């Protein structure tokens, strides 16, 4: 009798482990990482197969960072989230308690395996001679940037402009507010997402300068060679797009192990190399040095230094009635 039980147990075990040999992960990410994760997923699947013999399929979902966070809060079954800013993952922790509040401390470097920054994309030959932030508010210039309320990249761009004006010699919070105000007076179209703004700039011929993620600008230049130039301002912001597993979901799917390995892979030599190839700045100093010509060194302020972290920046600048809303006060 016992033998039969053992046999059944063995079969069940075998069946379940045979099932586990095909794992599926869902990575919920923001818009500009499409190309990056296509490459990362292929490389990770190969490595995981070699290490464990299991087949891992990683499904991708891309959209604006904020709406992705909301989808996860509303029940989109993400195993890992890789979003544009920490605030969006904080929201998942706060509103849905799907991961602990201290999630950002669990992985190295604020849980951001790669960083980026905000640069200027201008038309070939830089006809308006745009060199640095003050040039954006010259008369007649049209600046393209998406709506900071809906786009993560636009929030980084807004904060980069603010940081420039506050930190420059003789700068202050008041000067920064005035400067940001002026920039948005030069914005003719506020798209909802970074990709929409890039399309308006590149395809529709709207505007003279696009405030863009560094990786987006590089991609645009690569996609349409000879049409655009990239301008690095004297300083910008250190954009940290963080990653995390979604604890409640991976525990329910029993995918914690592979999800953690997936995020670890982003920090590995191989992962960092792929990120550098997709124009994200790798954290690994050796790999960053190897790609130094791709990533010009400019002063990068961090959000903690200038704004005291995301929660504070969000409340001051982007919440309803915040500084950004005051720009669009009815003009009476």
């Amino acid at each position: 009798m016992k033998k039969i039980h053992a046999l059944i147990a063995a079969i069940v075990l075998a069946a379940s482990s045979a099932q586990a040999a095909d794992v599926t992960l869902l990575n919920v990410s923001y818009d500009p990482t499409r190309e990056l994760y296509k490459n990362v997923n292929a490389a990770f699947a190969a490595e995981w197969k070699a290490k464990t013999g299991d087949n891992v399929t990683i499904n991708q979902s891309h959209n604006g960072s904020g709406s992705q966070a909301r989808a996860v809060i509303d029940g989109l079954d993400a195993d890992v989230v890789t979003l544009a800013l920490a605030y969006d993952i904080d929201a998942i922790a706060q509103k849905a308690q799907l991961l602990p509040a201290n999630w950002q401390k669990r992985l190295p470097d604020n849980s951001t395996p790669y960083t980026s920054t905000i640069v200027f994309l201008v038309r070939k030959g830089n006809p308006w001679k745009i060199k640095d932030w003050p040039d954006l508010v010259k008369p007649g210039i049209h600046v393209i940037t998406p709506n900071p309320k809906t786009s993560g990249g636009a929030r980084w761009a807004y904060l980069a402009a603010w940081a420039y004006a506050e930190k420059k010699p003789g700068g202050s919070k008041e000067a920064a507010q005035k400067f940001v105000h002026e920039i948005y007076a030069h914005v003719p179209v506020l798209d909802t997402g970074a990709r929409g703004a890039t399309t308006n700039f590149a395809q529709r011929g709207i505007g003279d300068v696009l405030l863009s993620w560094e990786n987006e600008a590089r991609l645009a230049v690569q996609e349409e060679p000879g049409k655009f130039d990239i301008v690095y301002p004297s300083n910008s912001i250190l954009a940290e797009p963080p990653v995390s597993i979604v604890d409640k979901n991976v525990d329910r799917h029993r995918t914690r192990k592979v999800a953690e390995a997936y995020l670890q892979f982003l920090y590995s030599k191989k992962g960092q190399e792929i990120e550098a190839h997709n124009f994200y700045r790798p954290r690994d100093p050796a790999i960053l040095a190897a790609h130094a010509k791709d990533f010009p060194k400019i002063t990068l302020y961090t959000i903690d230094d200038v704004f005291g972290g995301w929660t504070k920046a969000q409340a001051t600048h982007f919440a309803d009635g915040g500084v950004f809303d005051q720009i669009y006060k009815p003009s009476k």
Partner: protein
Amino acid sequence: MRRPTDDSILTRGLLIAITIGFIGIFLLLPLLTVFTSALANGLQAALDALRDPDAISAIKLTLIVAAIAVPLNLVFGVCAAWLVSKYDFRGKSLLISLIDLPFSVSPVVSGLIYVLMFGLQGWLGPWLRDHDIRIIFALPGIVLATIFVTFPFIARELIPLMTDQGRDEEEAAVTLGASGLQTFLRVTLPNIKWALLYGVLLCNARAMGEFGAVSVVSGHIRGLTNTMPLHVEVLYNDYQYVGAFAVASLLALLALVTLTFKSLLEWRYADEIAATHRH
């Protein structure tokens, strides 16, 4: 000779010119833009975009969604039209208005209501999660949103026609001993078949083309929950403009097939349709 009810050549020419100009600028040009953009890099590039695995899975998903949503709305449309046109009862205007309502609900709101119902923070979300049932960010949610958006299409097509036709014929049939079902199949259906078919065609075209509502409930998982219109957006945002317009062309072609089919019917069966209409 000119009849007194004819308009002068001048008026006639002017009105025809306005009609063609207006339709040309507002309807034809946008349509042509879609096709020319799709073929910007030649036919092969457009066809390649349609052969991509993500495109194929989007096409499949769209077909499945339409295959569920349209028959359900068909049954409902016939049922509601029968109810509204064959009986008098209180609150009929209210009922018709409620049936019409999804026409004018913002697609964004149509998606939102299902999130509020079935989302993890919504009424039924936690219970559904405990029982491992997925509604939003999966097929059922997409189907629900599609049904909502196309809800009035068939009923709307049938109600005015069946109201106009009255109920004398049906009442005669029933008095002569026919069952309800026989009456419907033998008397009503032949009278409404063209309107019904047209309603189905429109409902189907809209079901396949819905963007806003589906976008809110889809979750955007590539190869799994992206329908064709969402795939258009994905490609458009991936710098694959030709691909985006290629898939868009497929949807536009669907619209054109629908319209051609409808025109053919009207042309081929003009007398019959006129007969049922003026009944």
